[in-house]
């Protein structure tokens, strides 16, 4: 089975533009708004959304970076020894309206871990979830507020998001399990 490209570079660009504008529609004055990206590709996505908002509103939204490794509930089950990346939130989260950003929404367990970690940093007024791809198969009652594209998948498939910053190319593909390149 071959990798199937489901979003091209241009389609990703348009999706990000649209997502940024959806945030602006809902939060036109940007007051107390903050972005938090989940390592690694959620951070790339968050930075791009930040850039689009800057273009439109000429304002830099605070951007935090979250590594959820220490909050995972599946370390025992998957036996990973993951490379831990940095968590960096240098603004006060209290009473902020946070948009939590990740590339792919799948079981929802990453988001659960991210929510727990954010709560340990402060008490935001609200948290909304933005993802580029929602591939279904949720195991927890979590739903996104902003979605770039819904893609029905089977559990035998993997969704691979590539960004220029991390992978040299903008592309989203569905690939058969066991052939993931990273």
């Amino acid at each position: 089975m071959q990798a199937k490209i489901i979003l091209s570079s241009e389609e990703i660009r348009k999706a990000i533009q649209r997502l940024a504008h959806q945030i602006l529609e809902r939060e036109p004055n940007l007051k107390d708004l903050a972005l938090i990206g989940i390592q690694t590709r959620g951070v790339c996505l968050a930075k791009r959304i930040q850039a689009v908002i800057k273009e439109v509103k000429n304002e830099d939204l605070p951007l935090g970076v979250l590594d959820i490794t220490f909050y995972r509930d599946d370390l025992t089950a998957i036996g990973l020894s993951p490379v831990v990346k940095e968590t960096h939130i240098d603004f006060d989260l209290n009473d902020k309206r946070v948009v939590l950003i990740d590339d792919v929404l799948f079981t929802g367990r990453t988001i659960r871990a991210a929510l727990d970690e954010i709560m340990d940093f402060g008490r935001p007024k609200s948290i909304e979830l933005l993802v580029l791809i929602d591939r279904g198969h949720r195991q927890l009652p979590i739903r996104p507020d902003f979605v770039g594209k819904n893609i029905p998948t089977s559990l035998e498939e993997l969704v691979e998001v590539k960004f220029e910053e991390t992978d040299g190319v903008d592309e989203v593909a569905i690939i058969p399990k066991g052939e993931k390149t990273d």
Partner: protein
Amino acid sequence: MRWKRKDLLDLESLSPEEIEYILTTAASFKEVTTRQIKKVPALRGKTVVNLFYEPSTRTRISFEVAAKRLSADVINISTEGSSVKKGETLIDTGKNIEALKADIIVVRHSASGAAAMLAQHLKANVINAGDGWHEHPTQALLDIFTLKEKRGKIQGLKVSIIGDIAHSRVARSNIWGMIKLGAKVTLCAPPMLIPPAIEQTGAKVTSDLDEALKDADAINVLRMQFERDGVEAFPKSSEYFKTYGITEERLQKAKKDIIVMHPGPINRGIEMSSEVADGANSAILEQVTNGIAVRMAVLFLVTQAKNEKKHNSH
């Protein structure tokens, strides 16, 4: 890379990559310790047992704080003054602790190889918190971490380890770790406190303190261990301070930004003067802070190794 070791027993057997991996993980944990809530759930539901056959404050508390910041439960067992002996009894104690469903045993023992022996007989993760004159890997890791944090890298740094090398497990772990990461290590002590054949590690040996201080980027000053056996054949403390004690006057001949480390507890006025211990070059309290991050990393990584093994078996 992936961490594969169920135990951390020494630095001698680690690869440079493994040491770097611990340091990188420790850097992430250091960030955790700067948060308002300094605790993450990574080891929630795990039990850590500190099994100390020798007195220790700093190391035990450091492991305890590290384990608690990972959300583990901690039990401290101090066998000081009890009739517990080496050999089979150590294994028996270990097996009993394991039967209580402890996940990680942190052991300090006066016999070299004690931690390795426990590790051989137990499924629990074993971390060596000092075994005889052999090694004290987490101390060296926190020394290296501190140095790396201050200088960006270890490669090419000149590090002098000064003091009772012969009776120091801290020295041995430091020598292995620093040399593996590319530091140039010089050992400095009175001749009777230099162990035989130590040059085989790649370290340079001298009895001249000025030579050890000259050009050094960092010095790691060891504690004089008066409480240990076999330390009698050794100059009096006042005599030692005169010849090998680190004073401000002596440091004037060294690099201006020389980093002064000490594993603690300090004998002020014996290994170094108070002015140096509390001075601008001293990294001694930073070492203590970094020790928590390094031990969090080690506790976390050894449990991940066990998981991987379990995972592969089905």
